[in-house]
């Protein structure tokens, strides 16, 4: 059950599609441009008919697990159901057909949507303004840190360090480094929460910001968040909220009230825009008043019901993306917020917390739970208790695939050995959670009785475990010039 590549299916005899034609008498590129500028050989694209193309992609689609068919408890990624109405909304010609350089008078509906989405996000996270420009969560992190940097420079401060907990998402230190900051790690305590004394010892006049997600990546609420905020602000630094875990508390509490100065949100997690196999997402950033002048330009402004784009923002950090962000994703997220309303979003977060705690309880006897509950919207288990049997988190993940579940996030956060990070979300039924817990129970039983069989899983998928070590070795040979097979692309057999 595998599918050849389009390049392998390609037939030289396939007819090109029928396309508009130009007047044959009018001069073409070869008549006008110097020969040295022209492409000599056509690009090696495949040649297939439409029916062949449709079958090729349908067969590839069938090789994927997705939310539409499977439970997808990928921790930290909030793989909740994506309402199909969102897709219908984004496809409306009144949105999909807009050119970004149309006059403002002709896009009032689009600007109104962006303005209302901004107001809604401000209400949800408790900030003054939001930029919708960043294209993804990591892009939002980087944007927020850039604003913090610009703000501090404007006050004559040269703060060069960003503090990041050891349990943080990898994007946090990477985003800090991209802005030229030194990354200083802050330890977690035994209870899985930020170690306050360690934080205090690492705060200094060099500290620009602490990046934090709350609940943290262990799914635990940072109980001492108000003390953390106080410590950070007393050092003259800012507090940055990584919004990956926002789904835990909409309508329950708000990062702005906790003391966060900048907040990014993942519209593709909390607000149901589809993950698309790895994007496009959207990572808006909300800020408190003192950072507002530094927001990327343009912002959307509304005066007497008339909407405009404000490009004249002298202290802005500039632009972080072309045009106005991933507008199509903004339409989807706004559609979701309108449908859910304040009551629905609150219910969603409560249900997410309920599901996670329920599933955690069901799995308690089978896998280790390194931290005391209750958890928020996700929890981290550990397969450490199966180490005697030689069974690892990876084996559990593969065995789940064979039982028609997508696997939780594994080996993250790094502070838990053999981590299995489970985020069930609010859109799964109790029956699904029970079935998943049963599967875990079966797998753990199998680990005890016949561990070898787990090492051979998955057995029911198009491919078994792929040897990525060998692949990396082949890529290295290519990169060192010892082989002509790039591995990272198809090449016609010589």
């Amino acid at each position, binding site marked *: 059950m595998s599918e050849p590549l389009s390049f392998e299916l390609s037939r030289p005899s396939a007819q090109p599609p029928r396309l508009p034609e130009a*007047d044959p008498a009018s001069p073409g590129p070869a008549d006008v441009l110097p020969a040295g500028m022209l492409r000599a050989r*056509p690009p090696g694209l495949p040649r297939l008919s439409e029916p062949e193309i449709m079958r090729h992609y349908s067969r590839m689609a069938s090789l*994927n697990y*997705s939310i539409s068919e499977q439970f997808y408890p990928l921790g930290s990624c909030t793989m909740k159901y*994506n309402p199909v109405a969102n897709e219908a909304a984004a496809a409306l010609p009144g949105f999909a057909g807009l050119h970004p350089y149309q006059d403002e008078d002709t896009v009032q509906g689009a600007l109104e949507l962006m303005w209302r989405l901004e107001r809604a996000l401000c209400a949800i996270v408790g900030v003054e303004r939001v930029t919708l420009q960043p294209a993804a969560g990591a892009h939002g992190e980087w944007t927020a840190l850039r604003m913090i940097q610009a703000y501090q420079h404007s006050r004559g401060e040269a703060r060069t360090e960003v503090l990041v907990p050891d349990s943080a998402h990898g994007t946090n230190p990477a985003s800090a480094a991209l802005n030229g900051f030194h990354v200083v790690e802050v330890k977690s305590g035994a209870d899985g929460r930020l170690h306050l004394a360690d934080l205090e010892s690492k705060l200094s006049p060099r500290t620009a910001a602490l990046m934090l997600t709350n609940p943290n990546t262990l799914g635990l609420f940072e109980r001492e968040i108000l003390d953390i905020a106080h410590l950070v602000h007393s050092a003259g630094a800012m507090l940055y909220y990584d919004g990956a875990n926002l789904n835990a508390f909409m309508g329950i509490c708000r990062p702005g009230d906790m003391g966060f100065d900048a907040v990014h949100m993942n519209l593709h997690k909390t607000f149901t825009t589809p993950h698309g196999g790895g994007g496009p997402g959207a990572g808006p950033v909300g800020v408190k008043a003192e950072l507002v002048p530094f927001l990327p330009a343009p912002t959307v402004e509304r005066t007497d019901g008339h909407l405009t784009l404000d490009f004249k923002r002298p202290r802005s950090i500039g632009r972080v*993306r072309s045009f106005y962000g991933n507008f199509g994703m903004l339409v989807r997220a706004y559609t979701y917020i*309108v449908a859910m309303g304040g*009551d629905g979003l609150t219910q969603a977060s409560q249900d997410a917390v309920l599901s996670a705690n329920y599933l955690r309880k069901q799995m308690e006897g089978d896998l280790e739970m390194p931290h005391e509950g209750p958890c928020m919207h996700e929890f981290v288990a550990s397969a450490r208790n199966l180490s005697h049997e030689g069974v690892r988190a990876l084996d559990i993940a593969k065995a789940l695939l064979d039982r028609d579940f997508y696997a939780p996030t594994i080996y993250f956060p790094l502070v838990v050995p053999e981590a299995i990070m489970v985020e069930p979300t609010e859109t799964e039924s109790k029956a699904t959670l029970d079935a998943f817990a049963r599967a875990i129970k079966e797998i753990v039983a199998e680990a005890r009785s016949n561990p070898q069989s787990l090492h051979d899983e998955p057995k029911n998928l198009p491919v078994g475990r792929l040897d990525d070590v060998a692949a990396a070795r082949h890529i290295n040979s290519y990169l060192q010039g010892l082989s002509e097979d790039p591995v990272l692309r198809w090449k016609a057999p010589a």
Partner: protein
Amino acid sequence: MLDAIGVKSMDELLVDIPRSLRIKELELPAGLSEFETMAEITALAARNRVYPDRLTFRGGGVYRRFVPAAVAAVTSKPEFYTAYTPYQPEASQGTLQTIYEFQTMIAELTSLDVANASLYDGATAVAEAAMMAHIQTDRTEVLVAGYLHPEYLEVLRAFSEGRGIKVRKGSEPSQKTAAVIFQQPDFLGLLTDAEALTEAAHRVGALAIACVDPISLAILKPPGEYGADIAIGEGQQLGLQPSYGGPHVGFIACRRELVRRLPGRLVGAAHDAAGRRGFVLALAAREQHIRREKATSNICTNHSLCALAASVYMTYMGPEGLRQIAEVSFKRAHSLADRLAALPGWELAFPDRQFLNEFPLRVPKAPAVIRKLARKGILGPLDVHRWFRELKGVVTFTCTEVNDPGAMDELLAVLES
């Protein structure tokens, strides 16, 4: 479920949240039925004006092109759009294989060795390429030659500032230059001497970064053949709707020597124990989830679904189809340019420069001309004076396969009236 957990109320699960932080409710309206929701959203959409494809002559980075129905038919398959980054390869072969095909097609199009799985857009692709050059050469200046898209330049500046990289405009690189960046064709639609700029970069040990229009590569010599080290670009024209500027897709390809510096995801071929071929995320050691602050970039999510659209588009077109699209656009644009330049007071802004299907004209009373066209339902040219002080009265027209000869007649009729 509360019973099973062993608590009496939801509040017991939220016990770690300080009481002082709890809010009563969100200050948002109550939820609506799907019917009411769609009525509200549709009303917003109705407040926008959509110009027909054939009467759109504005480009500037986003173009109207024929999009085969096959594109939406594939990208609306929920197996593709509701999956996530393929961390479990055995259950994600569909996504992985489509990315591998995308990487191959971009590498073929640019004639470079390796392309990645996609980036957010053309603007961030420019910035990411500049960062690659900075790391590779350990130099702290990038040189931007010619008319790079002004928004790409702004994004490049924003990225560079945090990193302490200087962005300079000009065409004379120095020993400090990490890379020479140029757009081909440029923001105005003009063709640049890409080979000369590439040679100038290499003479001082800098990299040459070509920001290219993917459709143009059916006609023009690809970056890999004139020696560019990195090619980047915006892929919106490969089957994506304008959608008020996004989501679209950035692409990046490079020479073998630079592959380890590539940002974002890369997919490679691998085999299982039974010898079956499959696809996996490769060279992850460059990435943020492994390398953290030492990663080549912070990218986690990119634009896979948009890359899928581009793959379907390129597969549908094939080499001949893509060439025909490019040629038809070229011919129609040149015929339109001739007719427009013949209008009284109108002239080509750069008469000695070549172009493909977007071109700058100097016209009297440009803003009035654009307003007049809008009144007649035509999305007229782009007034580029907004970004470039020296280009007063200069507008750029775009013409593609969707602008049929009748549409051009309508455009001319309004302009002559």
